């Protein structure tokens, strides 16, 4: 009998004997992966949404007076001196009035009694940075407010800041749940293997006396750890996928979910989560054997 077939027979035998403990460990690994990947999925989607919002981010500088051409050139120079930007667009009082009229649509008559030059002229600055550089955007906004003729700078501070804090909070949750995953998975697998080693102490003793090599004794335990990692992570990810699909089906329509546009993990991320779980479980199994098995 060759090495692998012998080892697989041995592993199968072990699993049949200790299946209740193995099942509980599998459940724990699945739940840990589910909790972690749930928060990680929200986090990655938030990051993506942040990037999309960052693309649309613009800083509007309201001016006292409409700048003449020379003044416009000077302002562009000053702005680009501080930070390179995607685009700078000047809006005159007239253009601002026309845009508002367009936005009002059928209600445009509310503007009838108003002076077409009541809106201030402005400069729209589209920065190259995204939302993750909130501090830089703040600094940029402060600088823009010091430009000659600038009255006020707006970029939806409150919304951007809240979004940024939410993303940071999610980042902490992901790190915490990731640590939880590492701890519970490694601990549970190590504990299961320890129980299996203790339960089979007599058998292992006989195997040693019969001349079983370290590989013969240890490999089935390592395979058990490997299977725990593989099956635990894939079932956790499957559960998350079904949850994701359910949420998608239930909450389609206008609202935050439409804005965020949720997507599932890419195959690479799935592979990384599965591989990490396998490494953790096999590592837990290995450390447990080193500790409790004297060969």
């Amino acid at each position, binding site marked *: *009998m*060759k090495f692998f077939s*012998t080892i697989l027979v041995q592993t199968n035998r072990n699993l049949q004997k200790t299946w209740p403990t193995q099942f509980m460990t599998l459940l724990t690994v699945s739940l840990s992966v589910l909790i972690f990947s749930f928060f990680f999925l929200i986090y990655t989607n938030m990051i993506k949404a942040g990037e999309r919002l960052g693309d649309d981010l613009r800083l509007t500088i309201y001016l006292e007076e409409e700048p003449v051409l020379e003044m416009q050139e000077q302002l562009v120079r000053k702005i680009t001196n501080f930070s390179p930007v995607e685009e700078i667009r000047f809006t005159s009082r007239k253009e601002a009035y026309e845009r508002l009229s367009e936005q009002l649509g059928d209600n445009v008559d509310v503007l009838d009694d108003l002076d077409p030059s009541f809106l201030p002229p402005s400069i729209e600055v589209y920065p190259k940075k995204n939302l993750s550089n909130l501090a830089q955007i703040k600094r940029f906004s402060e600088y823009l407010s010091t430009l000659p003729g600038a009255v006020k700078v707006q970029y939806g501070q409150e919304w951007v800041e809240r979004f940024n804090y939410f993303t940071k909070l999610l980042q902490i949750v992901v790190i915490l749940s990731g640590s939880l995953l590492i701890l519970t998975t490694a601990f549970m697998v190590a504990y299961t293997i320890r129980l299996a080693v203790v339960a089979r102490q007599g058998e292992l003793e006989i195997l*040693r006396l*019969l*001349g*079983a090599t370290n590989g013969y004794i240890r490999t089935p335990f390592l395979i058990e750890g490997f299977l725990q990692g593989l099956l635990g992570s894939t079932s956790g990810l499957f559960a998350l996928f079904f949850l994701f699909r359910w949420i998608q089906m239930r909450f389609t329509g206008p609202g935050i979910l439409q804005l965020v546009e949720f997507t599932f993990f890419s195959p690479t991320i799935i592979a990384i989560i599965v591989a990490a779980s396998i490494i953790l479980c096999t590592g837990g199994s290995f450390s447990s054997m080193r500790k409790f098995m004297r060969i």
Partner: protein
Amino acid sequence: MDTKPANKSIVEIVRATKIYTPDVVALEDISISIVYGELVFLTGMSGAGKTTLLKLICGIEHPDKGMVEVAGKDLNRIKGGEIPRLRQQIGMAYQDFKLLPDRTVAQNISMAMEVSYQNIRTIKKRVIELLRKLRLEHKHDALAGNLSRGEQQRVAIARAVANSPTLILADEPTGNLDSKTTKLVMELFEQCNISGTTIIIATHDEGIYRRSANRVLELHSGHLISPAYNSISTLNNMP
């Protein structure tokens, strides 16, 4: 294991002493040499040190003084990786059987061959052959824990010889057997010996060695009493 040149020792024990804590002297200043292909009886009363001597030979215990060499390997200096290889070549039938009660008879016997990664068909064939020789074929799928002591003893013997080892150590192999079954077991050992296996049988059953032409070593309170040589040919084989 090494090759088996005629008259070369497979077991070489030189002035071995084994003391169990606190101060129980199990063996004292024992020197024995056993050549390849020999069948040796190790006799003595209970507590004489027979089991300890077998444990020293298969490397379960180590001497406090002296040297134990098996197949040219000094067991005090043997490397970790070499121990399993050596043990695969030693078939030991333990006095307490060391069977797994929740495994079948066939599975218990197979274990000895599985650890050396033998072909599954070879294992099955060998198990059936051994069970037939020991009249246990009807117990193939019975759990070892449900067998009588005599049956368990035969299963332990079958496991010891299953892997066709170079050296068989049998500790009181007929202790729980009737005369008919004892005869079967001894025939099995003799067959193994004829095919070149070295066998050491620890027993206090005078009936199995009295008329034997093989060497008998007698232990008394951890000391080797001058060995009786029942056969001139065996004597000539001594180094």
